[in-house]
Structure formats: structure tokens, C-alpha cells
């Protein structure tokens, strides 16, 4: 084992990740862990954030929606990057499985984007006095991110050969990735209602500890939840893509027996 | 020098070709025949590098066709069911463009003459008849400095004279060391040294 040079071990791992049965089983084994972990973290984080953490000196209790808003906003962006990277890998190395991942991420990302928009809107009412502000760059670009997710799915659906749909829409996903940094820096480039960076910024997070810790817990919980959903969807997608292969038919036979 | 090794071509859910291997040498013509829907067009597109095979290889002088560098790629000329002409340009304009883009032979006049398209040289392509268009497409093919011709039913819509011209050109081409793979439903009207039945 130790004799194997690191390069070739990495290569083998990469190779294994291209093998549908392996990934199918991997996802099946990971899913329960991710599911339970995310449940626990979400419960802890929610209790801490909603009950234990003190009310904000400015916003009172309305700030508590941060525990949903921020994780879903992060995941919407992270989801897009994940989708784009998977699609790029699929395109460059002709790896069908990577396309499968991108396909599974798209609707999840779209839902989390929608959640970020909705929770942001709800939060906006008490703090900014409006649900939605046309012309606020962060808000607009987050909306455009939703359109990009939808565009990716629409483009896929307009092709009826899966292979072609994979490869063409992968290019769109890659091009659209420019939106992500724009969303992140929009609050610095334009004067916006939306507040500046709080967590990822030079000089560390600017938020008190007793608000930060539950936020981090919720962030982890949401991410694991995302991972759990992804594993579930990926399993289905793999079965659909590989329905003509022997191992899937064997699997079906086992399940029937 | 076109080498095809255990090629397997799928279209949608169905496998069209399995384990097809052959080698085409300079001076040879392969006649591809088969009933409608047997995969002639699909095969030619794979040979041209326009589509990827499911398995197997198609190599031109040792390189996979879809990996060819642009300069070598121009040694292969493909003519499909569609003519690939611009409707808005004149017959001559189409030939000129082909010549400039492919850096081809300077024989436009002679070709128009052989195809009997001289009187129509300044007519827009969309005002040509179906057969005249097909002739023009063959003229474009002839201008290209290609060594391998991939032709998908080149005789469609041609009259007897047109077929005659095509026969002469094909002989000429292979006689000068060229290669050709031609699909057709009228194998009697073309001569080939290699028969591929699908």
C-alpha cells in the first residue's frame, strides 16, 4: 500500500469515481450517515439558534432567520460551483457519471436558491421595509442564479438524447459560473441594501460568538442535508442511466428475490 | 490508409454496426450499400469524425479521425444528404468560398463547365433545381484538395449526364491515388473495389 506512489493512488481514486457501480454503492453507504448527522446538527443548531442565542440588539428576534438564510444562500452558490465543476469534468474527460452529478445538483441548487430568495425577502420586510428591491445587485444576481439553474434544466430537457443534453448543457453550466463571484462581491462593488460580508472576510467573522456558533452548526447541517439529498438523487440517476447494463439488472433481480 | 477497427455504432437505442473492420488503401473505392436505415449515413459521419463511435477506432494515417489536426483534417472531404451550399450566394460564389476556405484548386471554370452549370454561374443557389444544386455540391467537393472522399448518396437527383460526370471524377480521383467511401442505393452505377454491405 505504502509503496504505491501518491500520484497513481489519486489516479485510481479518480478512476473509481468514474465507475457507476462503485459510486452507486458509495452513495448508498454514505446516505444514512449524512442523513442522521444532518438531522442531529440541524436539531442542535436550531435549538441553539432559535432558543439559546440572545436576540439581536438592533433587529430583535427577526434576525434568527439568518440560520436558514445564510446556509441556503451559501449552498445555492456552492451548489452552482459543484454543478459547474462536475459538468466540466464530464465534458473534458467524457465521464458520464460526472454529468449525472451535475444533473442531480441542478434542481437542489435551484431549490436552495429559491429558499435564499424567499428567506431573504421575508427578512427584508422587517429590516429594510420591503420584501424585494429591484436594482439591488446582490438580490438581482441571486435571482439570475436561479434563472441559470432553470436555464440549465430547460436546456437539458429540450434535447432528447441524453448524451447530447449532457455535453451541451455542461458548457452552459461552465459559462454561468462567472455569476458566483459576482454575487459574492456584489455587496462591495455596488452600494447595496444587503449587508457586506460577515463570515468570509479579511480579519475574521464580524459576528458575536453566541450567534456564530449556531450559524456554523446550521451551515454544517444544511451542507450534510444537501449531501444526503444528492446521494439519494444520484442513486436514482445512476440506475436510470445504467438501466441497460448487467449490474443494474442483477440488482433488480436481487431486489425482486 | 483509412483503418477501421472493430467499429461499433449506436444510434439512440439501437446498435447499427458491430465489429466492423476494414482498411481502405490509396486508389480504392468502398461502396457502402444496405437497405434504408441500415446505418450508411451514420457510418460515414463516424468516418468523417462528425460523430463518435460507441466502440472501436477509425484512423486516418494512424491518427483517430476526431483527433486530427486542422491541416490533416482537410485531407478528408465529406458530402452528406444535405448539400452544404449557401442559398444566398451564387453558384460561383459558393465555389469561390470553398476554394478560399479549403485553399483548394483553382479550377472553378473547368468544373462549372463539366457540370454544365456555366449558364447559371451567377444565379443564386436557391433558384437552382434540385439536381443543379447537387451538381454544385459535387463541384465543391472536387475543389477541395482532399485525398479521402466520403460521399453519402452522391447520385441523388442527378440525371444521366450528371451520373456520368461523377463516375469520371471518381475514377480520376482514385486513379491519382485518392480514396473514396461512397454510399448508394444504385451500386450498379458506380464501381468499387471494396463492398461494404450493412
Amino acid at each position, binding site marked *: 500500500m505504502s509503496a504505491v506512489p501518491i500520484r497513481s493512488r489519486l489516479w485510481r481514486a479518480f478512476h473509481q469515481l468514474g465507475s457507476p457501480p462503485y459510486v452507486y454503492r458509495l452513495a448508498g453507504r454514505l446516505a444514512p450517515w449524512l442523513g442522521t448527522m444532518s438531522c442531529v446538527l440541524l436539531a442542535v443548531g436550531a435549538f441553539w439558534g432559535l432558543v439559546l442565542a440572545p436576540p439581536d440588539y438592533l433587529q430583535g428576534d427577526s434576525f434568527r432567520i439568518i440560520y436558514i438564510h445564510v446556509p441556503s444562500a451559501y449552498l445555492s452558490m456552492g451548489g452552482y460551483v459543484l454543478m459547474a465543476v462536475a459538468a466540466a469534468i464530464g465534458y473534458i474527460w467524457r465521464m458520464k457519471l460526472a454529468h449525472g452529478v451535475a444533473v442531480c445538483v441542478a434542481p437542489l441548487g435551484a431549490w436552495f436558491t429559491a429558499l435564499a430568495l424567499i428567506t431573504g425577502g421575508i427578512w427584508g420586510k422587517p429590516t429594510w421595509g420591503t420584501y424585494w428591491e429591484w436594482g439591488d445587485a446582490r438580490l438581482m444576481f441571486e435571482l439570475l442564479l436561479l434563472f441559470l439553474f432553470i436555464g440549465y434544466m430547460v436546456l437539458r430537457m429540450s434535447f432528447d438524447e441524453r448524451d447530447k443534453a449532457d455535453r451541451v448543457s455542461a458548457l452552459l453550466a461552465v459559462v*454561468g459560473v462567472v455569476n458566483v463571484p459576482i454575487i459574492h462581491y456584489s455587496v462591495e462593488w455596488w452600494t447595496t441594501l444587503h449587508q457586506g460580508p460577515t463570515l468570509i472576510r479579511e480579519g475574521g467573522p464580524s459576528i458575536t460568538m453566541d450567534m456564530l456558533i449556531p450559524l456554523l452548526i446550521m451551515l454544517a447541517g444544511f451542507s450534510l442535508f444537501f449531501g444526503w439529498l444528492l446521494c439519494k438523487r444520484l442513486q436514482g440517476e445512476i440506475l436510470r442511466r445504467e438501466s441497460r447494463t448487467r449490474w443494474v439488472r442483477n440488482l433488480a433481480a436481487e431486489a425482486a428475490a | 490508409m483509412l483503418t477501421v477497427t472493430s467499429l461499433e455504432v449506436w444510434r439512440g437505442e439501437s446498435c447499427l454496426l458491430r465489429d466492423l473492420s476494414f482498411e481502405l488503401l490509396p486508389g480504392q473505392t468502398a461502396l457502402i450499400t444496405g437497405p434504408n436505415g441500415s446505418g450508411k449515413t451514420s457510418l460515414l459521419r463516424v468516418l468523417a469524425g462528425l460523430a*463518435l463511435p460507441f466502440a472501436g477506432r477509425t484512423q486516418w494515417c494512424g491518427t483517430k479521425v476526431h483527433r486530427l489536426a486542422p491541416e490533416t483534417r482537410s485531407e478528408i472531404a465529406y458530402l452528406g444528404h444535405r448539400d452544404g451550399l449557401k442559398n444566398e450566394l451564387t453558384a460561383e460564389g459558393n465555389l469561390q468560398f470553398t476554394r478560399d476556405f479549403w485553399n483548394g484548386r483553382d479550377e472553378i471554370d473547368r468544373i462549372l463547365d463539366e457540370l454544365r452549370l456555366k449558364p447559371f454561374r451567377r444565379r443564386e443557389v436557391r433558384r437552382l433545381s434540385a439536381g443543379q444544386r447537387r451538381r454544385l455540391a459535387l463541384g465543391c467537393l472536387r475543389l477541395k484538395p482532399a485525398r479521402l472522399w466520403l460521399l453519402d448518396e452522391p447520385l441523388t437527383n442527378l440525371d444521366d449526364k450528371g451520373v456520368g460526370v461523377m463516375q469520371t471524377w471518381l475514377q480520376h480521383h482514385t486513379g491519382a491515388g485518392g480514396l473514396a467511401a461512397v454510399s448508394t442505393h444504385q451500386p450498379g452505377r458506380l464501381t468499387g473495389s471494396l463492398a461494404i454491405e450493412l
Partner: protein
Amino acid sequence: MADIFICILKRDLRLAFRRWSELATPLIFFVIIASLFPLAASPDEAQLRSTGAAVLWMSALLSSLLALDGLFRADAEDGSMEQLILGPAPLGLVVLAKIVAHWSVSGVPLLVLAPVLALSFYLPLTALPGLVAALALATPTLSVLAAIGAALTVSLRAGGTIIGLLILPLTGPVLIFGTRATELAALGEPLAGPLYLLAALAVLSVSLGPVITAAAVRTALE
């Protein structure tokens, strides 16, 4: 290389001029949108001035999207695209030449026309150089984006409309910087900031865009 570029450029320009209507219409489209708008909105001067820049930019964007919709479709349908793919030149170069040809018949006249419209929206005369500069830097990016959209949808029948969905989200930054520059110009303030950003976007898209577009065309027609 250079002569192949010029050869495609000449072909596409000639095709565009053969259909002169194709040449004139994005422009007239632009004029009509921009002139119908004040008709629909109340034509009061102060308000027109403040929305003028936005309307100008929206209609520039839409007319360039429309003009580029058919960039590859015609070639794909008559089989010419296959010939270009198999030709002796890198497809990215061919695509770039096509985009340049299209830009010079759709973008350039827009640059000429925009100041006239701007004046009719009561923008001050001093703002015109800024406006034209911003348009000159923005339209190449818009053209490249539209070309990407056209390539992605070339094998779809519904291309014309789906392009909007795919590409409009990407045009957001151009639109924002563009109107920002126009507004600054109207106020007489320095507008180098947004212009630099527009230039950066143009460089980025003109260098990367053709490669992506070529990949998309090739894949879509596979």
C-alpha cells in the same frame, strides 16, 4: 490563419448584404423599441431622461440577441456547418470570424445610431462620447454571449426563444456597468471605472467565448 479568417468574414458579410433586410432590421428594431417606449410611458422630460439610459441599453441588448439568433442556425440547417467543422481551420477561428462579421453589421450601426436616440431622450450632448464608448466596449461582449447562446441551441427548433433564457442572466453585468457609465456620463462625472470593467469583460469574452462557442457547435451537431 489570417486569410481563412478573412475568407469567412467576407462570406458572412456578403451573406448579410445579400439579405440587406437582415442588416437593417436589428437597427430598426432598436429604433422602434426605443421610440415606442416613450409613447407607452408618459413622455415627460425629467422621467424620460432618467429612464432613457436603461431603455437604450435594454433595446441594444435585445436587438443584438435577436440579430445573432440565426448566427449558426442557417449554416446548420443547410449542412454548411458540417463543412466548416471539417474544414482546415480551427473552429474557434471560424466562429470568431462569424461573430466579428455579425458584430460589424449589427453592432457598429448601433454605435452610430445610439447618440441620436440618446438626444431624443434628452441626454446632454456631453454625455454622448461616454455613451458611445460604453456601447463600443459592451457590444462585443453581448455579441459573444449571444453567439454562445445561439451555439447551444443550434440543434433545437425553439432556439430563438430559449436563447433569451440562457443568455440574459449572463448579460446582467454588462447591462449594469453600461447604464452606470451612461448615467455617470450624463452627470458629467468621470466614468473610467465602469469603462475599465466593460473593457475587461470584453477581453475576457472575446478571448474565451469563441472556444466555448466552437465546442458548443461541435457538440450540438454531433
